[in-house]
C-alpha cells in the first residue's frame, strides 16, 4: 500500500457497507482514519492491493472474514494501565461500592484481559472481590480466549509490577501469579468471579444493571454518533449513583449524556450517574 496512492473514499465505504450487509458487523460508525490504517495493514499482510478484491474475498470466504474482524480491533493493553486511574478507583469508588451487598461490574472492551485482572486484584485487596461479579466483554473472540486463560508473556512483567505499585498496590505483586518458562499465569482465585463473554458495543444491548462500568480506550475508535449510542447504553446499564470509568483521553464532554453524570475525577475520567435528571 505504501507504494500506491490512498484508498478511494467510495470504495472504502462500499466495503464497510457490504460487510455490514453480509455479516452484520457494523464498522461504518468507527473513526475512519485508524480503521483505514488497520484495513491497510491487513491487506499488506495478506498481499492484497485492491479494495474491491478484498471486498469480494471477504464476501465469499467466512473464515477469511473471521480473520479480518480479529484484526480490526485494537488489543493493546497492560496491567493497571494508567496507574493513577486505578489509584483513583481505590480512593473514590471503592468505598461506595462497599455499601452494596452484591457488586456488579462491567468491563466493556476488555481486550486480552489485563485490566480485568488488575481490577480483580484491587477488589481483592479491598476485601470486595468475593461479593463482586465482573462481566468482561469484548468483540474480539481471540482476545477473550486469552483473557479467560489469564496467561501472559513474562516480557511485560516488569511494567505490570511497576504499574501495580504506582496504582497503590501494597503487597508483593508476585503473590498474584505463577511464573513458568516465558509466561506468567494469574491466580485462579482471581478468575472465580469474572464472567468473560462476547459483546459488540456497536450492535448489542444492555444485559444487566451495574454499579461500575469501565470502558477504556474503546470509544476513541468510534464516531460521535456511535459514542452517543454507547453512552446511552452505559447510562441505561448503570444503577443510580453508579460509576463510569473511561480512558485517559476520553470524555463525556461532547456527548448528549454529559448532564446526566457528575465528574468524580476529572483527570482520571471517572463519572457518576446522577439520580434524577433535572
Amino acid at each position, binding site marked *: 500500500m*505504501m507504494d500506491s*496512492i*490512498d*484508498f478511494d*473514499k467510495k470504495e472504502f465505504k462500499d466495503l464497510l457497507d457490504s460487510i455490514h450487509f453480509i455479516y452484520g458487523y457494523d464498522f461504518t460508525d468507527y*473513526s*475512519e*482514519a*485508524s480503521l*483505514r*490504517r*488497520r484495513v491497510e495493514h491487513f491487506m499488506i499482510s495478506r498481499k492484497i492491493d485492491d479494495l474491491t478484491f478484498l471486498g469480494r474475498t471477504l464476501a465469499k470466504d467466512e473464515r477469511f472474514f473471521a480473520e479480518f474482524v480479529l484484526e480490526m480491533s*485494537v488489543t*493493546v493493553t497492560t496491567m493497571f494501565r494508567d496507574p493513577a486511574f486505578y489509584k483513583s478507583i481505590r480512593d473514590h469508588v471503592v468505598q461506595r461500592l462497599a455499601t452494596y451487598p452484591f457488586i456488579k461490574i462491567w468491563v466493556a472492551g476488555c481486550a486480552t484481559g489485563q485490566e480485568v485482572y488488575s481490577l480483580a486484584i484491587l477488589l481483592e485487596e479491598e476485601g470486595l472481590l468475593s461479593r463482586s461479579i465482573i462481566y468482561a466483554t469484548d468483540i474480539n473472540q481471540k482476545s477473550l480466549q486469552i483473557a479467560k486463560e489469564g496467561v501472559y508473556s513474562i516480557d511485560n512483567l516488569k511494567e505490570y509490577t511497576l504499574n501495580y505499585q504506582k496504582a497503590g498496590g501494597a503487597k508483593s505483586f508476585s503473590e498474584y501469579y505463577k511464573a513458568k518458562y516465558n509466561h506468567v499465569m494469574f491466580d485462579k482465585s482471581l478468575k472465580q468471579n469474572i464472567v468473560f463473554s462476547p459483546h459488540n458495543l456497536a450492535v448489542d444491548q444492555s444485559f444487566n444493571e451495574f454499579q461500575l462500568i469501565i470502558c477504556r*480506550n474503546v470509544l*476513541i*475508535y468510534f464516531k*460521535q454518533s456511535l459514542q452517543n449510542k454507547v453512552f446511552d447504553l452505559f447510562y441505561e446499564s448503570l444503577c443510580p449513583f453508579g460509576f463510569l470509568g473511561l*480512558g*485517559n*483521553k*476520553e*470524555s463525556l464532554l*461532547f456527548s448528549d449524556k454529559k448532564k446526566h453524570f457528575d465528574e468524580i475525577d476529572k483527570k482520571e475520567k471517572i463519572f457518576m450517574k446522577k439520580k434524577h435528571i433535572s
Partner: protein
Amino acid sequence: MNKNWKYGAVVIGVSAGGLNAVSFILKKLPVDYKFPIIIIQHRNTEQRDLLEVILQEKSKMKLKQADEKEKIKGGIVYIAPPDYHLLIENDHTFSLSSDVRVKFSRPSIDVLFESASYVYKEKLVGIILTGANSDGSDGTIRISKNGGVTVAQNPDEAEFPFMPQAAISTGYVKHVFSLAEIQKYLLKINQE
C-alpha cells in the same frame, strides 16, 4: 480551512532534541498564523502535559494538546498526547488510537503524516526535524506522492541527524532547510 488558500495544515515530526528545534520555529510565528500546526513530539508518557506548558511559553500562537473529536482550526499549535497515535479524519477533526507502536513510537509521525495526507493531499506541508529513529520517513513518502510539500531539517545542523537523514534518503524530500529557513518558509506561506 479557507478553500482559496494554497495550504490547509502544517504537520511536524520531531523526536530527540525536539524541544529546542520546535521552540525556535514557533517563536517567530504570529498569533494569527493562518494554518493549524500539528506536532508529533516523541515524549515520555509520565508527564501528561508538561511539554505543552513549556512550549506555550515559547509560542505566541495558542498551543494545546490535541483532543479526540476536536475540530482543527487555523492559528493553533496542536501537540499529540503521550502514548496515543494522533490521526486526522475527513471532517478535519482529530482522532486517537492506542494501537501498537509504529517504529517503536506512539505517537508515531508516520501515522499522523499518512492520515493527514489522506485528508489534505496537496495542501499539506510535512516537516521532519531532529531525531534518532526513522519514524516519519514513510509518512514523508505519502505526503510527497499526494502532491504535498515535504521538508527535512538539514542533518548537518540537527541535534540528532538520523531522522531527517532517513526522510531525505527516501528521495521524497523537496526542501532540506536549516531551522532558520524552515521558520522563514512557514512565514512565507502565511503570506501567500
